C-alpha cells in the first residue's frame, strides 16, 4: 500500500453510546482510521461488533457521543447542522436490504433524482439526462425500466438503483453496509464488479462494511477488524490475510469455508459468543475468548501499535511477528 497525500476521510476516536446511565451501551468505543483517496477500506467483524453503527455514525445517522469525523480538514461533528448537511453530500451510504431501502411506490427515475431535487442542482432536461446517465452506469436501461416502480425489481436490480441514487451527488466516499450479503453469489459478483468499475470511473473511496471475509478480501485494499466496539487490527488486506497479527483475526479467518475442500487448512474454532457490549471485559475485550490470554490482558488494555509498516494491531501477544 502506498500512502499518497492526505486522507479523504479521517475517523478519530469515534464513540457511539446508546441509552444512558446504567443501561448505557457503548456500541463503538473509540475507533480511529483513515481512508485515502481511491482506496477501499474493509470493515469486518461479527454481528453486534459495531461495524454498522460506525458507518451510520460517520453519516451522522446515529449521533456520535464523542470523537471526530473529518472530511478533508473539516470536522463534520463540530460543524453547524446546516453546514454538516451540505458536507454530507460528499459522503453517501448504501444499505444491506436493497428492497426496503427504496420506496416501492415511487418510480425508479424519481428515486434516483431525489438528491438532485433536494439540492436543486439541476433543472428540467438536465435532470432527466443526468438520471438516465446514472441508470445506464449501473446497468439499468432507463428507456425500458425508468418508469417502473421500485417494487417491480429484484434484489440485485434494487441494489443497482440504490447505487445510482448514491452517485447522484458525485460523492467522494461511499459507505457500503453489507451491500451484497442479501444477494445470491452470481448477483453478488455482478454488484462487486460494478462497484469496482464505478470506483475507478468516479474516483471514489469506499468504506466497505461486511461480515463476509472472502467478499472483503476481493474488494478491499486495507482491512480493519472490529471486535466489541474496538478495532483490533488494521492493515493491507493481502498481508493481513496471509499472516494475521491479532488472535481474533486469525480465528475469524480460519472459520471461513472454502469451495475447494482439498485446501483444508487447520481449523481452529472460536469458542463461545461475543460478550455483551453493555458490560465489556476489563483489559483486552477479546481476552475471554482468546487462547493466549494472560493476566496482563485482563489488567491492561493493549494499545494500537504499528508493528510492521502499515500494520497496526492492539494485542499484547501479536502472532506472526518475526523478532
Amino acid at each position: 500500500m502506498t500512502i499518497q497525500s492526505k486522507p479523504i476521510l479521517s475517523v478519530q476516536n469515534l464513540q457511539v453510546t446508546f441509552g444512558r446511565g446504567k443501561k448505557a451501551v457503548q456500541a463503538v468505543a473509540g475507533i480511529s482510521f483513515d481512508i485515502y483517496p481511491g482506496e477501499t477500506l474493509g470493515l469486518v467483524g461479527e454481528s453486534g461488533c459495531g461495524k454498522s453503527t460506525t458507518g451510520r455514525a460517520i453519516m451522522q445517522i446515529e449521533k456520535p457521543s464523542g470523537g471526530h469525523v473529518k472530511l478533508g480538514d473539516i470536522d463534520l461533528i463540530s460543524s453547524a447542522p446546516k453546514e454538516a448537511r451540505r458536507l454530507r453530500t460528499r459522503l453517501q451510504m448504501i444499505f444491506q436490504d436493497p428492497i426496503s431501502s427504496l420506496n416501492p411506490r415511487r418510480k425508479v427515475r424519481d428515486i434516483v433524482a431525489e438528491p438532485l431535487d433536494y439540492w436543486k442542482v439541476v433543472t428540467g432536461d438536465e435532470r432527466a439526462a443526468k438520471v438516465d446517465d446514472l441508470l445506464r452506469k449501473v446497468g439499468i436501461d432507463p428507456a425500458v425500466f425508468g418508469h417502473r416502480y421500485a417494487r417491480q425489481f429484484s434484489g440485485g436490480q434494487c441494489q443497482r438503483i440504490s447505487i445510482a441514487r448514491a452517485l447522484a451527488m458525485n460523492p467522494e466516499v461511499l459507505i457500503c453496509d453489507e451491500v451484497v450479503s442479501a444477494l445470491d453469489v452470481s448477483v453478488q459478483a455482478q454488484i462487486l464488479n460494478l462497484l469496482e468499475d464505478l470506483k475507478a470511473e468516479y474516483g471514489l473511496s469506499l468504506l466497505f462494511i461486511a461480515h463476509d471475509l472472502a467478499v472483503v478480501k476481493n474488494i478491499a485494499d486495507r482491512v480493519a477488524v472490529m471486535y466489541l466496539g474496538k478495532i483490533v487490527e488494521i492493515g493491507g488486506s493481502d498481508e493481513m490475510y496471509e499472516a494475521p497479527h491479532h488472535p481474533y483475526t486469525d480465528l475469524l479467518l480460519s472459520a471461513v469455508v472454502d469451495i475447494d475442500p482439498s485446501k483444508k487448512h487447520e481449523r481452529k474454532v472460536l469458542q463461545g459468543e461475543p460478550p455483551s457490549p453493555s458490560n465489556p471485559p476489563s483489559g483486552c475485550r477479546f481476552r475471554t475468548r482468546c487462547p493466549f490470554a494472560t493476566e496482563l490482558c485482563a489488567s491492561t488494555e493493549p494499545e494500537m501499535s504499528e508493528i510492521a509498516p502499515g500494520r497496526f494491531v492492539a494485542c499484547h501477544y501479536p502472532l506472526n511477528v518475526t523478532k
Partner: protein
Amino acid sequence: MKSPLLVVSDLHTTFETPRGPLPAVRGVSFSVAENQTVGIVGESGSGKTVLARTVMGLQPIRGVTLSGSVLLNGKEIVNRPHDELRHMWGSEVAMIFQDPMTSLNPVRRIGDQIAESLQVGIGIKRKEARARALELLVQVGIPSPEDRFDAYPSQLSGGMRQRVVIASALSCNPKLVLADEPTTGLDVTIQAQILDLLDKMKAERKMSTILVTHDLGVVATRTDHIYVMYAGRIVESLPTADLHAHHRHPYTAALLNSTPRIENKSHTRLTAIPGSPPNLLKPLTGCAFAARCSFATDLCRNQTPELRRDGGASEFACFNPVGVNA
C-alpha cells in the same frame, strides 16, 4: 446391499397461482444412504427449499399438485395425509429451518418446547420429558442449561436459538434430518460451531442428513455428495470431493467462479453470471440455463438435456459440459 434410506423419484411440485401453475420442482430424483450427508445447493428460487419441504411432506393439501414418489424407509410420503405423516415427523424425519426465531414459539419457554416434542413424539410423561429435554440442551452445548431451560427464545442469541432448534429436531431420534439453510444469517464463527455440532450429532446418532444451502463453501466442507439445483431440476450430481476439480455442468462452474475466495488477491475480478434465473410461470423449452450459459448452442435452446452418467457416482444434464470429455 440395503436399499437407501430415502429414495426420491421423478418428484414434481407445482403451485397453483393466480398467474397459472408454477412448477417449482420439475422432476427430481435422488437418494440418501444411511449415515450419508447430502448437500443440495442452488440460488434463491432454484426450488431447493420446496424440494426439502416436499420430501418432508410439509406441502399444504390445497393449491399444490405433487407427483412422483418419496420413499422414506420404504414408506411413501407423497400425497399422504398429514395426520398419518405426523407419526413419522420427529421420529423418522425432522427438519431444521433457516430462521430459528420463527421455528420456535416466541412465548413458550425453550425447555417446554423441547419437552413437548418428546411428549408428542415418543409419548413419555411430562416429568421424564423435561429431564430428557435438559439432557438434550446439554448435548447441543447450551451453556448453563438449567438456567436456560426456562428462557424464552428472544432471550437467546441466534446461534443459541439454532442449537435449541437442533435439540428439538433431534429429540425423537429421527433417522433423517433435513437442514434448510441452518447457518444462513449466522456469523462465520457461529456457523462453524453449528456445523460442527450437526456433524457431531450425526456421528453419534448415525443419522442421515440433507443440507440445503446456497453456500458452496458449506456443502464443499460438510457433505459426502452434492446435488446442484437450477430452476427446479438437478443439473449436476457429484461426490463432494469432485466439486472443485471435476464438475461438468457450466452452471456449477459459473457458481464456483462467482464465489469470492479468501485466497484471491485484493481486487480480483469475479466472473459474474449474466442475467437472472428463468421465470418458471412461462413454459421453458430447452435447457433452463441456456440463456445465461456461455457454451449454449441451438441444441441447448431447443432440447432439454437429461441427467447422464459421467463414470462413477457423477451425473450431469448438459450437452456441452466443461472439463475433459469422457
